C-alpha cells in the first residue's frame, strides 16, 4: 500500500501521487465536507439517539382504491397531513410569534389555498416539519403509522371488488399488521379524557388558537366521518354521493370558524356509529390518535411546559398512548362518553344530516375531562348541559321507570328484526333517517342506558380508569 521511497534515515518520504497521499487528501476532503454538518449539530451531554424506523404498507389488491375512486376526499387528507405538520413546526419554532400567525396567516393559507388545491400524493411530513421531526421522531412515526391504518381502511371500503362479507376479514388483517409494530402503534384500549384534558398543560392550544383548533377538529371529523358513507351506502353510486355530501358538510364546518367548527373533539363512536359498531378497536385507535394530536398541540403551545421539557412530555404521551394500562377506561364508558358529549358538539352527523349545522350546547373547547369525571360520571348523566343532548329527557338508568325501560327494549328489538331492517333499506327516505348519525346516537344512547342497568357484558372493561400520574 505504502510507497517505497525512503529518506537517508530510513523513514518513508511521501511524494505527490502516492496512494497514501491521495487517501490522506481524500480523508481531508471528506473531513472538510463533513465537519460543517457535524459542527452544526449541538451535542449536549445526553445525545438523543433514536432508532425508530419506517415500514411499508400491507400490500393488498385494495391498495390505493380510495385514492382512485374518492380522489376528492383522498387529496384532502394529504392537505390535512400538511396542516398538522405546519402547525407543529410553527408551534415549536415560533413560540414567541403572535397568535395571528397561526390563527390568520397560516389558517388562511390552509383553508384558501392548500385545501382548495390539495397535494396529489401523501406528504413527506419531515420535509414540512424538520425541527419537530428531529425533536420527536418517535411521535412522528406513530402518527404516520396510524395514518396508514386510516388509509388502508378506506381502501377496503372503497374497493367495489371486495364483497361485503370479505371486508371485515380484510380489515382484521390490516389491524393485525398495524399492531405488529407495538413500538409505534396506538393502544386499542380506550383512554380516559383525563389523559387529554386533565394534564397541567391541557387546553392550552384550544384556548390560545381557537380557530386553528376548530380546523384540526374539522379534519378529525372528516377523517372518521367519511367511513359512514362508505358503510351506509348500498352501492358504489350511493357511496359516492353520500361521500360527496359528507365532504360538502366538512366545507360547511369551515364556513365561519371557530363558531361553525366542532366545539369538542369529534369522537368516532359519535360521528361514525356504523363504523364503530363494526370495528370498535379501530375506532378506539383513531380516537387515541386524535387525542394525541391534541395533546402534542397542547404541550407545544403551553408556556407551562419549558422548551427543554417539550420532548420529555411528548415522549411521556407517546408511552401512555401506546400502553394498554395507563388511563384506560372501559369500552362502555368510552361509547357513553362519545354519545354523552353530544354529537351536535362534535360537528354533527356525517351522513343524513339536516341542511343547517347543529347547534352546539357546550362552551367551545370545554374540558372533556370535566365532563367525564365531574358529577356527570354515570352513564345516565353523560349528557351535555343543555337539553339538546341525545339523552335529554330520558331518565337516568338508576331511576328509570319500568314502563320506559320496557318501551325502549321493545323499540330496539323491533329495529333489530331483519325484516324491519330490510324494509328500512328498501325505502330511501327511511334509510336516510336510519343512517343519520344523530338517530343512531340516540339508539346507542338507549342501548347504553339499558346495558347500564343490566349485568355488564362479559367483554366489558373495568370501569375504573387505571390512571398513572
Amino acid at each position: 500500500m505504502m510507497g517505497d521511497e525512503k529518506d537517508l534515515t530510513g523513514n518513508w518520504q511521501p511524494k505527490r501521487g502516492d496512494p497514501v497521499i491521495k487517501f490522506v487528501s481524500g480523508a481531508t476532503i471528506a473531513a472538510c465536507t463533513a465537519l460543517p454538518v457535524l459542527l452544526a449539530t449541538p451535542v449536549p451531554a445526553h445525545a438523543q439517539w433514536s432508532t425508530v424506523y419506517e415500514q411499508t404498507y400491507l400490500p393488498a389488491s385494495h391498495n390505493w382504491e380510495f385514492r382512485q375512486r374518492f380522489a376528492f376526499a383522498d387529496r384532502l387528507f394529504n392537505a390535512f397531513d400538511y396542516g398538522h405538520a405546519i402547525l407543529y413546526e410553527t408551534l415549536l419554532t415560533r413560540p414567541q410569534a403572535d397568535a395571528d400567525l397561526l390563527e390568520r396567516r397560516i389558517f388562511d393559507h390552509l383553508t384558501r389555498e392548500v385545501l382548495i388545491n390539495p397535494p396529489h400524493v401523501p406528504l413527506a411530513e419531515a420535509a414540512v416539519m424538520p425541527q419537530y421531526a428531529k425533536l420527536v421522531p418517535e411521535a412522528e412515526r406513530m402518527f404516520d403509522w396510524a395514518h396508514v391504518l386510516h388509509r388502508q381502511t378506506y381502501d377496503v371500503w372503497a374497493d367495489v371488488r371486495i364483497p361485503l362479507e370479505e371486508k371485515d376479514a380484510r380489515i382484521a388483517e390490516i389491524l393485525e399488521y398495524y399492531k405488529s409494530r407495538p413500538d409505534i402503534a396506538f393502544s386499542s384500549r380506550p383512554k380516559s379524557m383525563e389523559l387529554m384534558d386533565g394534564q397541567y398543560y391541557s387546553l392550552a392550544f384550544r384556548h390560545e388558537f381557537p380557530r386553528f383548533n376548530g380546523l384540526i377538529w374539522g379534519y378529525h371529523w372528516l377523517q372518521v366521518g367519511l367511513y359512514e358513507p362508505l358503510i351506509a351506502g348500498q352501492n358504489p353510486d350511493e357511496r359516492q354521493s353520500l361521500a360527496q355530501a359528507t365532504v360538502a358538510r366538512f366545507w360547511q364546518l369551515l364556513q365561519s370558524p371557530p363558531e361553525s367548527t366542532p366545539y369538542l373533539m369529534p369522537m368516532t363512536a359519535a360521528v361514525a356509529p356504523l363504523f364503530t359498531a363494526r370495528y370498535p378497536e379501530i375506532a378506539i385507535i383513531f380516537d387515541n390518535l386524535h387525542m394525541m394530536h391534541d395533546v402534542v398541540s397542547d404541550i407545544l403551545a403551553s408556556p407551562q411546559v419549558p422548551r427543554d421539557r417539550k420532548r420529555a412530555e411528548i415522549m411521556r404521551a407517546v408511552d401512555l398512548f401506546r400502553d394498554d394500562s395507563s388511563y384506560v377506561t372501559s369500552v362502555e364508558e368510552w361509547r357513553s362518553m362519545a354519545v354523552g358529549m353530544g354529537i351536535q358538539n362534535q360537528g354533527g352527523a356525517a351522513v343524513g344530516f339536516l341542511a343547517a349545522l347543529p347547534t352546539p350546547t357546550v362552551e367551545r373547547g370545554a374540558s372533556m375531562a370535566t365532563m367525564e369525571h365531574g358529577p356527570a360520571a354515570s352513564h345516565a348523566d353523560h349528557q351535555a348541559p343543555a337539553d339538546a343532548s341525545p339523552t335529554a329527557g330520558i331518565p337516568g338508568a338508576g331511576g328509570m321507570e319500568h314502563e320506559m325501560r320496557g318501551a325502549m327494549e321493545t323499540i330496539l328489538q323491533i329495529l333489530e328484526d331483519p325484516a324491519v331492517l330490510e324494509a328500512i333499506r328498501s325505502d330511501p327516505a327511511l334509510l336516510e333517517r336510519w343512517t343519520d348519525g344523530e338517530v343512531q346516537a340516540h339508539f346507542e344512547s338507549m342501548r347504553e342506558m339499558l346495558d347500564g342497568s343490566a349485568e355488564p357484558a362479559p367483554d366489558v372493561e373495568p370501569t375504573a380508569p387505571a390512571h398513572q400520574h
Partner: protein
Amino acid sequence: MTIVRALGALPVGLMFASAVGAMPSSLGAQTDYFNTDRNRPVRIEDAHATERYALEVKLAPVRLERGDGGVYSWSIDPELAYGILPRTNLEVGLPLRFAEGDGAASGLEGAEISLFHNLNTETRTLPALAVRGDLSLPVGALGPDRVIPAVAGIVTRSFGFGRVHVNARYAFADRPESEPGDEPSAGHEDSRWLAGLAVDRPFPLNSVLLIAEVYADQPLPDGADLAWNAGGGFRYQVNPYLAVDAGLGRRLTGHPSWFITVGSALHLGVRRLIPGVR
C-alpha cells in the same frame, strides 16, 4: 451506433420488467422523492434506507455522458432495493455501459451488491448516520477482474432550508495503470475514494426535491488526477408509488465531461416478502 448498442440492454431491462410484472400489483405508499439514492439524480445520497419490507425497483436509470472530443457513452443501471431489516436495505444492481470512440465497448459493467444500514434517525442532537458496504462482482464484459469491496459513510442533517448530505467512500481495489486516453467516468464506482457534499431543498406541497452536489473522487488507475465534479437535479413524486428524477452535471477537472441522468423508481409491496403475511 450508440442507440443500436443501447438496444442490447433490452434483455436486462426486460428481465427487470418481467420481474416487476411477476410481482403482485399491490403498491406501497411512499414519499420516495424525499429519500435520495446514488446517482438518482446525483452521486451523493442521503442516510435513509428503503422502508422495511418495501421493494424499490429502479427500472431504467439512464445516464448519457459526453467526454472529450464529443465522445458519448451511455449507461443504464437497473437496481432492486429491498428493506430487509429495520433501517437496512439490500441492493442488487446490474450496470450496463455503451461507449463510443476509440475505446468503444459495451456490456455489463459487473454486478453490484450493497448493504445499506441507517444507524439512527436524525434528532436534534445527532444527524442521521448510515454505512454502506458494496461488492462489485466480476461479471460481464466490462466488469472488474475480481471482486472489489468498498465501504461508505453517509451523514444527513436537516435545517430549515433543506438538508445537507455528506458522503465518503473508499474502495479496496488494485490500481491498474492508467492508459493514455483513459477517461474516468463521473459517477461510476471506479474510484479509489470519493468524498462530497450535497444540499437539497424540498417543496413538499408539490412533492419536488431540488438537489445540488459537489464531490471529489480519485479514479482507480494509478497516475490519474483527482477529479472534481458538480451536479444538480430534481426528484418528483408522480404518484404514491412512482418517483422520477433527472439531473445534469459536469466533471470539472481531469477529463472534463458533461452528463445527464434520467431515472424512475417504483415502490412496491410484495406480500410474500413480509413474514407472517399470507
